[in-house]
């Protein structure tokens, strides 16, 4: 089975080397999303396998590029991994196991199931927001996904193909979770270790959180009424 790690990186000069060193025994592709720091030089000097986006596309466009690459190169499983070291490389095998066993189409590395295995603490407000999104997805689809904003996810071949052609540009994680549920793909949440960010800033912070949640809720509603095809 061909397995690919998709690592979107936007201005991650401080952590990119450490992240790649931790996953060296997997195939990987770093998507340099128009970084303005030294991310590009680091990738080139170390000869890391990477794609350069000439303009910044944002997380959705960058991750989709990775799925396109996985699809074109015939990968069986693609895993999204953040470049900032938040996702624990040790959890990758837990993430892909249900897919290899053919139990599911898609797995989400979750911070919120089996809490004791986890040293990740997110703010109260952020948890409220994630909970709200989770409830909305549950109301619309009868499927409970706890960690709707997790960017640590793995997809099988069918989902890779779907994402290569359709991937939300904004707030991609919760929206694509819901799209997959709506299309009838099987999703399993797997407990995954996540660390506090080692460097850099999260793409979701402080007052932007409320804006983020409202946008996601509206987007989920739109996806609910929109006709989508595999």
């Amino acid at each position: 089975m061909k397995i690919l790690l998709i690592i979107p990186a936007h201005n991650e000069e401080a952590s990119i080397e450490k992240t790649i060193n931790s996953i060296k025994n997997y195939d990987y592709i770093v998507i340099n999303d128009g970084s303005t720091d030294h991310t590009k030089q680091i990738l080139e000097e170390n000869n890391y396998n990477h794609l350069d986006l000439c303009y910044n596309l944002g997380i959705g466009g960058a991750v989709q590029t990775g799925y396109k690459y996985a699809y074109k190169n015939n990968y069986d499983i693609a895993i999204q991994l953040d470049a900032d070291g938040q996702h624990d490389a040790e959890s990758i095998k837990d993430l892909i196991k249900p897919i290899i066993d053919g139990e599911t189409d898609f797995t989400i590395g979750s911070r919120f199931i089996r809490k004791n295995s986890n040293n990740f603490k997110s703010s109260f407000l952020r948890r409220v927001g994630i909970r709200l999104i989770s409830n909305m997805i549950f109301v619309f689809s009868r499927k409970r996904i706890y960690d709707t904003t997790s960017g640590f996810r793995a997809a099988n071949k069918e989902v890779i193909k779907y994402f290569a052609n359709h991937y939300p540009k904004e707030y991609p994680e919760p929206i694509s979770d819901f799209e997959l549920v709506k299309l009838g793909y099987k999703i399993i949440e797997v407990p995954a270790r996540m660390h506090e960010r080692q460097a850099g800033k999260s793409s979701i912070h402080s007052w932007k959180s409320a804006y983020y949640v409202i946008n996601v809720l509206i987007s989920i509603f739109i996806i609910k009424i929109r006709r989508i095809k595999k």
Partner: protein
Amino acid sequence: MTSLQIEMTVAAIILFLIIIIGLAKNSLSIRSSITWLLLPIAFIIIAIFPGPLESFAHWLGFETLSNFIFLVVIAILILICFFLTIILSRQQNKITKLIQEVSILKHDKKNNEKQK
């Protein structure tokens, strides 16, 4: 001739000239100019025959024809803005796709060169 008729004629001529200049300079495509050309044409028709439209405006409850024209023009502008947003979203999607494809092609090219 009322002042409204004169003003609309002048506005139509200016708008028409702007569109023609845009077309001549090739900064406006013929396809998108057609929508805009309808506006001065409509202005001219109203300026020449204000009668029917005026009675229509009165029938709708507008006190003057100019009020009615204001409303209609604003409505048209809002519509055009909306369609521009749709076009913009489509263009954005195309640009995103192009950036993605280019990055993958560049990567393939580099790999091929390495193998040689």
